[in-house]
């Protein structure tokens, strides 16, 4: 299988979808010059400015126009640049895109993919680092996807584009350069299926996005101590793969949920609460969560370090869980 970066994998998947389906188009700021991270490089040359649409700094119109285009048969891929700027278009996403099909009694669907790059990256500070996936999971009508690997960023992006629902598609900025194998023929990955990133017997780490890699590092550390951690990469947060998580946790009886986002009100709470409610006594210890403290993301690296969850910390929490 060819090796490529997370960024290139998505670029390729998007190009293939655009070749396959003339209704797919991309819209956002600076796309004509490849997009702010280069995720759209070369696309305008192949598909022209009608399908790789350069937008003014008009987030309401970028997202709102995509709702109108989707209602009339387009399948827009909407670039928000940083997830933080999607906050300028929340009405369009939450009040319009997510609700139109329902409010209108099923007359129409709004198939669009809102790409929202998330996460800690290069000391980007409080307004360029947020991970707000928990918000979108709470909103009926939305699908939420967060790929962690190049292969997933290809297959999930294809699935998102083919999905008839509005999809919030969150790529992690710190993963753009991550290399990995991607199938020659990129197939869509069914939304709502978790990926077993590492099989293990002693406890389950449930995680997604960049935290998957830290969790794998922690699992490697633990392996050196004879602890065999399973790592589940959720990939899709809504719907989340309850079967896979339940099956794993029912087996290991111990679960630690790890995400980069703020812990309070993070999506980890939903998973932990659900597992506690539904697996109850079958657990050897209550579900535990790791997430960022409830502080904005600071700029200076030693401060920023305080919102990060390093592998050590995961391993430590895993050990505590095993003692519980």
């Amino acid at each position, binding site marked *: 299988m060819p090796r490529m970066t997370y960024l290139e994998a998505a670029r390729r998947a998007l190009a293939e979808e655009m070749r396959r389906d003339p209704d797919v188009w991309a819209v956002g700021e600076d796309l004509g010059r490849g997009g702010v991270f280069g995720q759209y490089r070369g696309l305008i040359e192949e598909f022209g400015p009608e399908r790789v649409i350069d937008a*003014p700094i008009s987030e*309401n119109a970028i997202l709102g*126009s995509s709702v*109108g285009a*989707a209602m*009339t048969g387009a399948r827009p891929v909407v670039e928000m640049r940083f997830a933080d700027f999607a906050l300028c278009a929340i009405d369009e996403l939450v009040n*319009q895109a997510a609700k139109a099909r329902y409010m209108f009694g099923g007359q129409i669907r709004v198939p669009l993919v809102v790409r929202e790059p998330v996460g800690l990256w290069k000391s980007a500070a409080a307004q360029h680092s947020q991970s707000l996936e928990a918000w979108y999971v709470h909103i009926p009508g939305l699908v939420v996807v967060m790929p962690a690997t190049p292969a997933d960023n290809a297959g999930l992006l294809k699935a998102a584009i083919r*999905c*008839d*629902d509005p999809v919030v598609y969150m790529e992690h900025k710190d993963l753009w350069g991550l290399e990995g194998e991607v199938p020659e023929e990129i197939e869509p990955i069914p939304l709502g299926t978790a990926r077993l990133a590492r099989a293990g017997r002693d406890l389950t780490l449930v995680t997604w996005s960049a935290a998957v890699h830290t969790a794998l590092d922690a699992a490697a550390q633990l392996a050196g101590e004879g602890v065999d951690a399973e790592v589940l990469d959720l990939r899709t947060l809504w719907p989340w793969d309850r079967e896979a998580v339940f099956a794993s946790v029912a087996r290991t009886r111990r679960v630690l949920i790890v995400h980069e986002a703020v812990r309070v009100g993070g999506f980890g709470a939903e998973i932990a609460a659900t597992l506690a409610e539904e697996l109850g006594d079958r657990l050897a210890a209550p579900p535990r969560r790791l997430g960022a403290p409830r502080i904005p993301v600071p700029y200076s690296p030693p401060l920023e370090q305080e919102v990060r969850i390093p592998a050590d910390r995961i391993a430590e929490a895993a050990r505590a869980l095993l003692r519980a």
Partner: protein
Amino acid sequence: MTDAAAARGANLDRERLCAFYRQMWRIRAFEECAMRGAEAGEVFGTVHPSIGQEAVAVAVCGNLRRDDILLSTHRGHGHTLVKGADPYAMMCELLGRVDGSCRGKGGSMHIADFGVAMLGANGVVGANTVIAVGAAQRLKYLRSDRIVACIFGDGAVNRGTFLEALNWAAVHALPVLFVCEDNRYAASTRTCDLTAGGGAAARGPALGVETVEADGNDVAGLDATVRELVERVRGGPPVLLVARTYRLAGHTSRDPAAYRPEAEVAAARKEDPIARCAALLRLAGVGEEELAGMREAACREMDAVYERARGAAWPPRALAFADVQDVGSPEERPF
């Protein structure tokens, strides 16, 4: 230009004027039924009547093709009716019945009828403008000659979406007819007090959109204006029409609108578009009896619609869980 001159200038025949008159009465009768329904507690949600503004609906939507796209507002019954939606389905929607345009899931503020390319009222002021430009961009991409008409109020021009939408439409030369239905109020607020500069009429040109102002209560004149604008917009760059009218009723059916000076209301009543159309019809030789006949026909139609809708079935509870989304759709009663 007087209304009479407009009638001659537009070379309107009696039949066309009668059609306007009938349509305006249908809108008013529909809304009067809805307001009575709201008072009786049978129409549940908020009803925003467009009484006094019927000429805009008739002139704008009457000049659209069935496949031209319409986006409307919270005050959209008239627009929707004239676009060709079935009043029975609309009334069922207000009454929350399964035969409603949206199967009872939207209510008055969210009526949509994609069968007549009516892409929805909207509960968020100013949200439809940005949606409209995307629909127009799609039409342009398809090399279609359809257009998009997007109607909004004078209050909506103070939302940032107004700037973003008009700029977008102008940059891409999209076929959008923006219509600012200027009824002088945004809820209880006089918009002139909170709108700086020349309002919509000045903002359109500044955003690169050709802008036309018109008397929104002169149905014949407005019809002629819109007919021309629609042809200009077809395939072409966007146009903004600012139609001056007045909201004769309250903001909602529950609003006594006591914040308006009485003299203002009295003056506005004299400009009621239906009354003005009747005056034109009289000039054109239509007798009182015929006028009353048209009015009564509209009232009878809508009364019958209301009665029939009252008898319609409620949506089955399972419908609450339908059409949320394909992937990750909710189980019924998951709690």
